[in-house]
């Protein structure tokens, strides 16, 4: 972490959000990474930790992106991108793959979000627009089944609207499912009391995060010091 803190920057960029989340993945974990920024988490897991990646289209032991020219169209991840398989990987069918998910065998799932509510509700599949083609994929299965749900998201939308809310306005993906949120500004835990700030990104102060959060924000850094 030190090399991040030493940067003279404000907040975390996309890679740094993934890097920060990666610090919280314990050795020996079974992890499912959602499409987008979450996919990057695998690159940043600290050395010395062995983490096994699951992709819901039937592979446990997903490895890094293959070199250009070495892609196999029959070896892809849930985002339909070419991947590799590590030594010790296992292939299985979709029924067995989601048995792993639904049966609470996956330790951590890292996903993106449109909105997160202070009770852990997650909205990340639909804006509820009547013109949109609805598409849910495996998101509802993952949040219902995986033990711990990490969210990586910008703290606010491109238009500056808060994404951490008292209540989601978009259709839910799951109720009370989110455990922790990694934004460009902070790391926030969802607790029984609501959003609790665990850590600020470099150059970011508590008030800035509080203003951009449309729900109560508890500073548990203080609580921990007391």
């Amino acid at each position, binding site marked *: 972490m030190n090399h991040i803190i030493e940067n003279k920057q404000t907040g975390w960029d996309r890679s740094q959000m993934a890097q920060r989340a990666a610090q919280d993945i314990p050795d020996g974990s079974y992890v499912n990474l959602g499409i987008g920024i979450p996919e990057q988490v695998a690159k940043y897991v600290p050395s010395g930790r062995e983490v096994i990646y699951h992709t*819901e289209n039937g592979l446990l032991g997903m490895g890094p992106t293959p070199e250009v020219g070495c892609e196999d169209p029959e070896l892809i991840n849930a985002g*339909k991108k070419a991947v590799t398989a590590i030594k010790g990987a296992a292939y299985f069918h*979709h*029924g067995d793959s989601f048995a792993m998910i639904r049966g609470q065998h996956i330790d951590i799932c890292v996903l993106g979000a449109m909105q997160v509510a202070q009770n852990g509700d997650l909205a990340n599949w639909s804006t509820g627009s009547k013109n949109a083609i609805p598409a*849910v*994929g*495996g998101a*509802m299965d993952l949040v219902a089944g995986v033990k711990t749900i990490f969210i990586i998201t910008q703290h606010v939308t491109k238009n500056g609207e808060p994404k951490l809310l008292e209540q989601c306005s978009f259709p839910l*993906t799951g109720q009370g499912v989110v455990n922790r949120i990694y934004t460009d500004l902070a790391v926030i835990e969802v607790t029984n009391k609501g959003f609790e700030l665990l850590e600020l990104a470099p150059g970011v102060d508590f008030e800035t995060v509080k203003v951009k959060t449309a729900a109560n924000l508890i500073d548990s850094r203080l609580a921990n010091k007391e």
Partner: protein
Amino acid sequence: MINKYIPSVKDAVVDIFDGATVMIGGFGEAGSPIELIHALIDQGAKNLTVINNNTGSGHVGLAALIENGQVGKMICSFPRTANSTVFPDLYTAGKIELELVPQGTLAERIRAGGAGIPGFYTATSVGTVLADTKEHRTFDEAAFSGKQYVLEKAITADFSLIKAHQADRYGNLTFNKTARNFAPIMAMAATTTIVQTSNQVEVGEIDAEHVITPGIFVNRIVTVSNPMQESKLIAKGVSYP
């Protein structure tokens, strides 16, 4: 003697009837039985209900089947994909029906259909709009208490079209990497399961410990020696037919 091999993809799909429910294997292009789908386009059966995780890409394979006006309803988890315009356009125009199912629930509903289980309960979708019309209940057992579950019902099909890596004349199958995806459970859930493979092997060549789909779930096999690759066709701008 049991020999499930038949001469051609045309023969393989000849009896798929108007209004049939058809499961099609594949997750994106991985495992998509593209030659069987094209044979179904040639054959022309209409008003099909198709089950696949997606709705195809470009203007080949599943997307082409939809574009050809043969699909009345899609049951899938993710109808939007890169290079996918056929389904979105028809859906927006109100010309095709969609049953949206979470991916794991879709897989388990298919597996249930194949396993003779008419319904099961899951926490997936509870608290979301997709659960609005579903039966809810709770369970007292410790591992499941304190949560709501919804009843999900089996999906069965008249036909499944899948792609295998190897097949012997009994119908024993293996698959290649993540092309396995929905194929083994779809093979279980259809009255008639139709397989395309590029590797016809002798009985006994597949070790009994390594068989993924036992032959009992397979009805017809056709050899497609050099299957097309959907993404390459799309890159070339190919349309079928």
